[in-house]
């Protein structure tokens, strides 16, 4: 279990180039960062790339962390922004889509992907949500984060997060065949 105060101290050590401290920060957050990336991007390879980009940014910007939020919240905010950037790049250059294959030397990845997969129809419905709604639903309902935390990560008021989550769920239900009268 990570204590926020200790995490801030770890980041301070990262600023001075402490590799062990950075490894510790990564160990604490890598699975959740990867999970958020995978749920938002919907592709394991892209999620791995985004996870790497996220931690590169964390390392480079560790000196800018001002302690106004928990370290985790700061990292997940970087995570979501990294995913936004990747989606934007993919939209600008649709022909340069990232490889959609798994590492052939890692059969465990395929197994992990299958065991962690959402029901296919939910995954499709999630992918069809507008980005803002999808991110709010992923962080809130899939990652189990509190609404204030999601608001801080997304940089929007709590009321906006609520609205996005509620409307996102409604759209998911609609996509999944539960028609709700508007």
């Amino acid at each position, binding site marked *: 279990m990570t204590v926020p105060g200790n995490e801030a101290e770890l980041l301070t050590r990262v600023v001075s180039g402490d*590799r062990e401290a950075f490894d510790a920060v990564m160990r604490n957050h890598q699975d959740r960062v990867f999970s958020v990336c995978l749920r938002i991007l919907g592709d394991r390879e892209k999620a791995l790339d985004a996870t790497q980009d996220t931690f590169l940014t964390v390392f480079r910007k*560790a000196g800018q962390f001002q302690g106004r939020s928990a370290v985790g919240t700061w990292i997940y905010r970087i995570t979501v922004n990294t995913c936004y950037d990747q989606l934007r790049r993919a939209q600008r250059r649709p022909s340069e889509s990232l490889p959609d294959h798994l590492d052939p030397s890692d059969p465990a990845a395929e197994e992990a992907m299958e065991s962690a997969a959402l029901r296919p129809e939910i995954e499709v419905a999630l992918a069809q949500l507008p980005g803002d709604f999808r991110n709010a639903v992923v962080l809130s*309902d899939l990652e189990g984060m509190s609404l204030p935390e999601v608001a801080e990560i997304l940089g929007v008021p709590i009321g906006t997060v609520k*609205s996005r989550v*509620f409307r996102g*769920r*409604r759209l998911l*239900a609609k996509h999944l065949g539960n028609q709700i*009268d508007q």
Partner: protein
Amino acid sequence: MHEHPLDLIAAFADGSLSDEAEARALIETCQECRAEYLAQTEVIAWLAAAPAVEMTDLEKASLHRDLWTELRNEPARRSATPWWQRLSYVAAGLFVTIGLVGVLNSGVLGGGAESAATTTAAAQGFDEAPAEEVPFFAEGSDGGESAPEMTTDTTAAATATTAAGAGEDSLTLPFAELADEARARQNDRVVAESTDADFEECLTRVGLDDHVVVDEIDFEQTYLLVMRKDPEAERVVTFVVLPACEVVYVG
């Protein structure tokens, strides 16, 4: 359905309401509200049942390997100091250097110095300035007329500068203005970039090799302050060379 019932019913569905009475009443009396409630709870249950996502051991190992490979290829310690902090060091150094130039112009050269206010406003014509002007500052550079030793305390730096050039208008520019100037200029005046070039090579590459290095200041990182006097306009132009060969025209 209006937004108020959606907020109320969705919050009821995920259990975040403190007072559920109104929502319960709505669900019992309004068919539309009940359908919304069922849809929300169903989606919440589906999403909550999703298994946790983790990287495999191999993926984690690859992530760590690739990350450190990438970070090792970056210039040393470049990420350790935020850009605004680095620029504040540059601005502090520049402030001191402008003070030095003021002293050189008024004392060593017998007056006729341009003010630093003029200096920072100068923005044209430095490319055409002939190399003959180089000796203007050569003595100051080679003869050890370096700027006062800098610390990262910018207030102290500004104070030292003011003391060095007492009576000169050029030395009363607010520090924040200089920092803003440097920051603004950096966006559009970075004229060369390379990760492994030394300062001399940088200057040559961007045609500044006929300018005079006034000082090299090492705070947390090394910055090269390059200045020359424009013979046409009787003014000093200033550049700052940052690590990785970013040459910034300051004014």
